């Protein structure tokens, strides 16, 4: 499509049932009460000139450009700050207004560099446009203002890798400052100085943007009406001339973006205002960190090799696919049907995931399919399905705007889900209360204009004890929503649960020592959540990645049901999914026991539907989970693996165990963008496609199905689903599709919750939240409104069971892992962007006392030793850590964070217990043995045959 320029109504939309009818230039319009005159006029198609107003932030009323005349009102009020009143009659264009606007514009231009033809914003400058609108023809004050021409101007701040700040272009409209405050919620920018000396500043006078509190979300750049804050890519390439609407491929928020292009060149990614998940906001990853898609490390030619120490040999697609199929078939002949399997990726589209699981079930002839959700949110699926009846979060993101008490448990949204965190912080600034349960003092605990009412700084591994203690208070202090429970929940299960949590052993006083938090804090938090009207729970991997991950999800569901916090806006139990398509990959039947739509493989009716459609007999037996695959590889019964877009060698726990399993296999096929860590153990590499090349859908954490549209052709020449279909055919199962749309039609045909979904429907409606079917033709923003999917909600008994991973004198500290704003997961994408400047290496965060006790100074290299292995990292002394707990990220493979983590896992799903590993920290001046061996593997297992000389 041509460049999509979204309308800017000048001020935000008001959401109220009450309406007001006004006349503007003789035409009548009815708008919600509180709407500005500016917006009402814009909705009528009669835009008023403006500079300091934009609909992403509240009105400011400083530029004096948007003046109007109103019958019965003296003077010329600013239309942006004037709300409509019933019966108001407004004129937006009169000789008097023209004269005033032109005069104001003269003042602006008198102190603005007039380098329009060479300016990066030429063709995309609101100042330029407005000067044209007001008919500016002369500037009576001359052109000698301080900011004129480069020689007089301050040097540009080019410290940020993605945008520059040129104060000479600034008209001090404060849009950037307000965007940072109101949209992002970081408050990094301010206006420094007075009068003509006023200028935008990223903190103190000595700060530049890179060194400031700025999180590079891009909101200020988006808000800027001139070239003051401008993407460097626009500076380099010029303004874009076409747009493609698509979806970000980073976290589970699933932001909608306009890929703004020149030909096949992405010039910039701009968040889409109509995107249901992000409503026009973005973070540093989605907005700027897309350069990996064209990084020199991309592998775009298929490659094979006989042994993992051989150099890779570039081959044709046909040869690569035949090589993989021959090896897989040979393994099956030798070791049996169940000796191969595959892993799907949450970074791939629903359509790509669907065909991989179909290939495994239909062409491989077994259910040995698992997904990377195994290691993140599989307990969410189990816990929410058991209690509510469906494996998904209950709300849309917008719901947070109605929450009164927000309980954040085991999640760090400002780093992991930044765009949602901004929405949450906006609600918190408006008065909602916050409870944070996290061992670390995460940013949400205290950040500008946000302060948690309670920070429950619990010991890692005691989540369930905490939830039982909270529930104890609810039950014993008469805070149960008896009416809700009686009407909506299973009576016997509730009675049993009530008796269980009421036991004295579950009282905060009894559990406080285990949890490490004083009982009064727990009691007050429970009262706040239960009595604060709308209570909403948001959680992340700090909940799921424990040996009691599933128990904890059920415990949260129990608490929400007991307090009636389910089934309407502003409440719910909401998983914050790690990757862009975790929800979708689970929906698409990626688990070894479930067909698409979460139907068990033993369900003969469901299986029969697939068998009829696919013309094949399917196995009724659950297949291997990822950890079972590793165990089976080591016992010799599992010999071949297809890995779609996942880096199990880096992301899965107990690296020694994982790599031993991978080394023992006969054929590993990796389908990816890069030669990742897993590829070191592979015999076949099939080039994948970046999100900029994909055609399909992602489903985000709020069950929102969004279109992913290609902005450029596949660099490898084939879509991923076509490669899988070819491999499937080579394996003997005839899989054919003419487009990814056809795959979605098959998904809709076979999956009741997707029955109303099609590409045509998504193209028309933008996005849809499943279930989308006859009962909910327009989708389901809020789940369980009239009743639970399973009928009645089921309370589950959630006995606290301490993890088997224990500290002792040899391993006295607990290591917990997580991620940081600028990097994403294993870093395969973000490490290949300028984002690495914010996080060039993983570090070990350690409490000052623990550091001092070990003689560790900030920046010292330390060895982290667990029962499983050791690595060394630089130490960072941090007050965010509680004593006894250390923390690191796993974004850089050489860090080897998972060399240390254990094989302990969730009882129900085998989700690894990444969050609790007993370790010792000592000073060190060298890499660990594993890190030395890793560097050797980099030398031996990644070689590519040199091209023959021409």
């Amino acid at each position: 499509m041509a460049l999509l320029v979204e309308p800017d109504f000048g001020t935000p939309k008001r959401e109220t049932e009450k309406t007001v009818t006004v006349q503007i230039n003789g035409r009548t319009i009815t708008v919600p009460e509180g709407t500005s005159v500016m917006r009402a006029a814009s909705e009528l198609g009669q835009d008023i000139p403006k500079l300091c107003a934009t609909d992403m932030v509240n009105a400011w009323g400083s530029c004096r450009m948007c003046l109007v005349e109103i019958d019965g009102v003296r003077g010329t009020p600013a239309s942006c700050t004037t709300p409509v009143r019933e019966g108001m009659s407004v004129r937006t264009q009169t000789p008097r207004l023209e004269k005033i606007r032109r005069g104001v514009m003269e003042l602006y231009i008198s102190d603005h560099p007039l380098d329009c033809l060479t300016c990066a914003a030429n063709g995309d400058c609101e100042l330029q446009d407005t000067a044209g609108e007001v008919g500016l023809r002369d500037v009576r004050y001359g052109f000698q203002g301080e900011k004129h021409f480069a020689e007089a101007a301050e040097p540009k701040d080019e410290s940020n890798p993605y945008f520059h700040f040129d104060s000479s272009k600034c008209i001090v409209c404060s849009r950037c400052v307000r965007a940072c405050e109101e949209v992002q919620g970081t408050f990094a920018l301010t206006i420094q100085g007075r009068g003509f000396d006023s200028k935008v500043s990223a903190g103190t006078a000595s700060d530049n943007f890179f060194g400031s509190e700025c999180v590079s979300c891009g909101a200020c750049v988006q808000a800027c009406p001139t070239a003051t804050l401008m993407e460097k890519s626009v500076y380099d390439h010029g303004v874009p001339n076409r747009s493609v609407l698509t979806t970000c491929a980073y976290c589970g928020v699933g932001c909608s973006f306009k890929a703004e292009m020149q030909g096949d060149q992405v010039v910039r990614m701009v968040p889409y205002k109509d995107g249901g998940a992000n409503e026009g906001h973005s973070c540093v990853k989605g907005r700027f960190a897309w350069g990996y898609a064209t990084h020199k490390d991309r592998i775009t030619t298929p490659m094979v090799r006989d042994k993992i120490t051989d150099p890779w040999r570039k081959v044709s697609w046909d040869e690569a696919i035949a090589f993989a199929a021959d090896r897989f078939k040979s393994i099956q002949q030798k070791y049996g049907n169940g000796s191969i399997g595959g892993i799907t990726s949450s970074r791939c589209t629903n359509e790509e995931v669907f065909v991989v699981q179909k290939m495994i079930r239909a062409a491989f002839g077994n259910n040995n399919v698992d997904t990377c959700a195994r290691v993140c949110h599989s307990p969410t699926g189990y816990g929410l399905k058991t209690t509510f009846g469906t494996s998904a979060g209950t709300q849309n993101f917008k719901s947070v705007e109605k929450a009164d008490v927000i309980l954040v448990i085991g999640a760090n949204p400002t780093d992991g889900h930044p765009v949602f965190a901004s929405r949450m912080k906006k609600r918190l600034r408006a008065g909602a209360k916050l409870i944070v349960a996290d061992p670390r003092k995460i940013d949400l605990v205290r950040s500008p204009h946000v302060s948690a009412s309670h920070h429950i700084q619990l010991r890692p591994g005691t989540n369930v004890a905490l939830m039982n203690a909270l529930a104890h208070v609810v039950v014993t202090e008469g805070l149960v929503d008896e009416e809700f429970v009686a009407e909506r929940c299973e009576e016997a299960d509730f009675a049993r649960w009530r008796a269980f949590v009421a036991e004295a052993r579950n009282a905060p006083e009894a559990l406080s020592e285990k949890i490490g938090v004083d009982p009064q804090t727990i009691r007050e938090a429970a009262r706040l959540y239960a009595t604060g009207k709308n209570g909403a729970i948001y959680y992340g991997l700090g909940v799921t990645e424990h040996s009691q991950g599933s128990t904890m999800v059920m415990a949260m569901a129990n608490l929400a049901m007991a307090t009636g916090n389910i089934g309407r806006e502003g409440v719910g139990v909401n998983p914050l999914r790690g990757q862009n398509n975790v929800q979708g990959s689970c929906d698409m039947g990626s688990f070894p026991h479930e067909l698409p739509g979460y139907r068990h493989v033993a369900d003969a009716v469901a299986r029969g539907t697939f068998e009829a459609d696919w013309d094949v007999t399917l196995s009724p037996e659950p297949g291997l989970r990822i950890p079972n695959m590793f165990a089976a590889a080591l016992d010799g019964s599992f010999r071949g693996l297809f890995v779609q877009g996942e880096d199990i060698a880096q992301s899965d726990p107990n690296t020694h165990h994982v790599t031993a399993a991978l080394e023992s296999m006969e054929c590993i096929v990796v389908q990816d963008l890069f030669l990742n860590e897993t590829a070191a153990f592979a015999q076949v590499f099939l080039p994948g496609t970046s999100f900029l090349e994909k055609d399909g859908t992602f489903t985000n954490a709020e069950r929102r199905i969004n279109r992913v549209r290609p902005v450029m052709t596949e660099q490898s020449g084939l879509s991923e689903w076509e490669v899988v279909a070819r491999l499937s055919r080579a394996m003997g199962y005839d899989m054919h599709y003419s487009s990814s749309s056809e795959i979605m039609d098959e998904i809709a045909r076979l999956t009741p919750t997707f029955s109303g979904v099609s590409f045509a429907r998504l193209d028309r409606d933008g996005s849809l939240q499943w279930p989308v079917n006859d009962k909910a033709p327009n989708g389901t923003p809020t789940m369980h409104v009239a009743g639970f999917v399973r009928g009645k909600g089921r309370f589950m008994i959630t006995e606290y069971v301490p993890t088997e991973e224990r500290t002792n004198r040899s391993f006295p500290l607990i290591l917990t892992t997580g991620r940081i704003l600028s990097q994403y997961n294993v870093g395969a994408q973000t490490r290949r962007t300028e984002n690495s400047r914010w996080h060039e290496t993983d570090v070990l965060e350690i409490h000052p006392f623990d550091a001092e006790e070990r003689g560790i100074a900030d920046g010292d290299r330390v060895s982290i030793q667990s029962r499983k292995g050791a690595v060394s990292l630089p130490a960072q002394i941090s007050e965010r850590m509680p004593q006894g707990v250390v923390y690191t990220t796993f974004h850089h493979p050489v860090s080897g964070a998972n060399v240390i983590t254990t094989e302990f896992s969730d009882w129900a799903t085998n989700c690894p217990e990444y969050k609790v590993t007993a370790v010792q920290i000592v000073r060190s001046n060298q890499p660990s043995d594993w890190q030395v061996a890793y560097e050797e593997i980099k030398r031996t297992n990644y070689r590519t045959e040199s091209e023959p000389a021409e």
Partner: protein
Amino acid sequence: MSDDIEELIRMANQIATFFQAYPEEEAVNGTAEHIRDFWTSAMRARLDRYVADNGTGLHPLVTRAMGHLQQAA
């Protein structure tokens, strides 16, 4: 004892530990259903053999659950 059976014992015992909060028959059924629904037949067979051998170290609910599954087969 080999690594693979140790891992299966640990997993089975974890499942039983969750369900032991329920009355015994429910706990046996819960454990059995979980193993039936989520484990491969090879894993179940391996644990069956271990139960038949001696079953040392298994939670009593696991032993009963495996018996349940055998009867149902």
